[in-house]
């Protein structure tokens, strides 16, 4: 039998080495795999490159990972949000690098990484500051930029339910980057509120097929970032 269960978040992220590139799912708090991120903080890997749409809020989850100075570089579309103070402070102090990518280009680059498409053309950012240094080309009279795929060593994502073969379904808008990051990482680790045996998910409704998933971890009662931030929580 194939069984992709890991006993817990700590075991699931135990082998992440220093210098790894890690995709972290979520748009704001929706889909943010807080328990996996906290396990990564405990685990201690440093000099990481993080690919994620935002940079977290308060001092929990992704923001706590940044605060712990484990991250050398962030690739994201929107590094400032309400209650986001950790990244701006590190960035102004020159303690972290930023590659700013338009959100749709970020998503497409990740999808391209998973789909084996090394480069593609997109109209977003053509003619702007973010086009600097990029190859551009005109198709049918419109200007496009050449963008490269993004791939990662690990993806940490959050689902609602998975089976032990790694098939995953998500919760509402927490789906966001999860399915494409799962495709683009060498090792994809998914935390879910509920784990079921094969056959427990209808094959018609699976969003991420198990082929894209390496480890699944049950976190029955995941924390919500906004509640932690509201309560003034910090991690560790």
């Amino acid at each position, binding site marked *: 039998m194939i069984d992709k269960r890991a006993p817990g978040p700590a075991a699931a992220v135990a082998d992440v080495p220093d210098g790894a590139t890690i995709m972290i799912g979520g*748009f*704001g*708090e*929706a*889909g943010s795999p807080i328990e996996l991120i906290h396990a990564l903080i405990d685990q201690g890997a440093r000099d990481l490159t993080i690919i994620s*749409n935002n940079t977290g809020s308060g001092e929990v989850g992704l923001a706590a990972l940044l605060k712990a100075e484990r991250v050398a570089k962030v690739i994201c*579309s*929107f*590094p*400032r*949000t*309400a209650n986001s103070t950790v*990244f*701006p402070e590190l*960035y*102004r102090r020159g303690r972290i690098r*930023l590659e*700013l*990518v*338009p*959100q*749709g*280009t*970020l*998503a*497409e680059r*990740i*999808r391209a990484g998973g789909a084996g498409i090394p480069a593609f053309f*997109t*109209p*977003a*950012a*053509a*003619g*702007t*500051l*973010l086009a600097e240094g990029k190859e551009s080309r005109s198709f049918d009279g419109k200007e496009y930029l050449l963008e490269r795929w993004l791939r990662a060593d690990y993806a940490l994502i959050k689902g609602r339910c998975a089976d032990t073969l790694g098939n995953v379904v*998500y*919760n*509402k*808008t*927490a*789906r*966001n*980057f*999860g*399915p*494409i990051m799962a495709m683009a990482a060498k090792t994809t680790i998914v935390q879910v509120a509920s784990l079921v045996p094969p056959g427990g998910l209808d094959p018609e409704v699976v*969003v991420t097929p198990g082929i894209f998933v390496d480890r699944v971890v049950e976190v029955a009662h995941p924390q*919500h*970032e*906004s*509640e932690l931030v509201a309560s003034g929580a910090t991690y560790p």
Partner: protein
Amino acid sequence: MTTNAAQIGWTREDMARRLALDIPNGSYVNLGIGIPELVARFVPEGRTLIYHTENGLLGMGPAPREGLGDPELINAGKQQVTALPGAAYFHHADSFAMIRGGHIDLCVLGAMQVAQNGDLANWSTGEPDAIPAVGGAMDLVAGVKSVFVITQHCTKNGEPKLVDRCTYPLTGRGVVNRVYTELAVIDVTPGGFSLVELSPGVSFEYVQERTGAPLLRQGTLANGTRHEDRC
């Protein structure tokens, strides 16, 4: 000369109501964060619009009633929302396929500057200390069929936001179709800014004085129809 600007012309709600009049029934619409969100409150009787939020939901409804929200059902501004009957969830690559692929009929955005050639600047002042953040704005202006801007006519310091040429970093080139301010509705045409409608009690000259580029009294819309033909 702009000290009275706050008391003159439409309120934000009026601007949103005026903009909503121009959205055809059945449109797929993406509303930016801030004033654009107000538009959803003023959809005229008898029209149905379907709202897209780029974080993976088509068929977005209003904020949930107190205590009934889900922290994982949010809009692009990270506020809790609801899903209407007939909604669909999808991942980010599919969501931006809708945007980039030209499937969204209209997006409504805020602006720092709009130039007479349709250039839009709305993501960065370019100041060295600023934390750059672009989000989905560049994808939206590059892919959505029509781009409406809703904004105060001038900055807090009284500088025109409708300008000859953008001085802030661009979001996109030649992308804006129409601008709604508290003073007027203005089209971006091949000939430049063209007045569509003045807010009550505001004169053409008053608007022109506060606009950083020539304003045509009337003209042909970008799509080739005349003002009178618009929906």
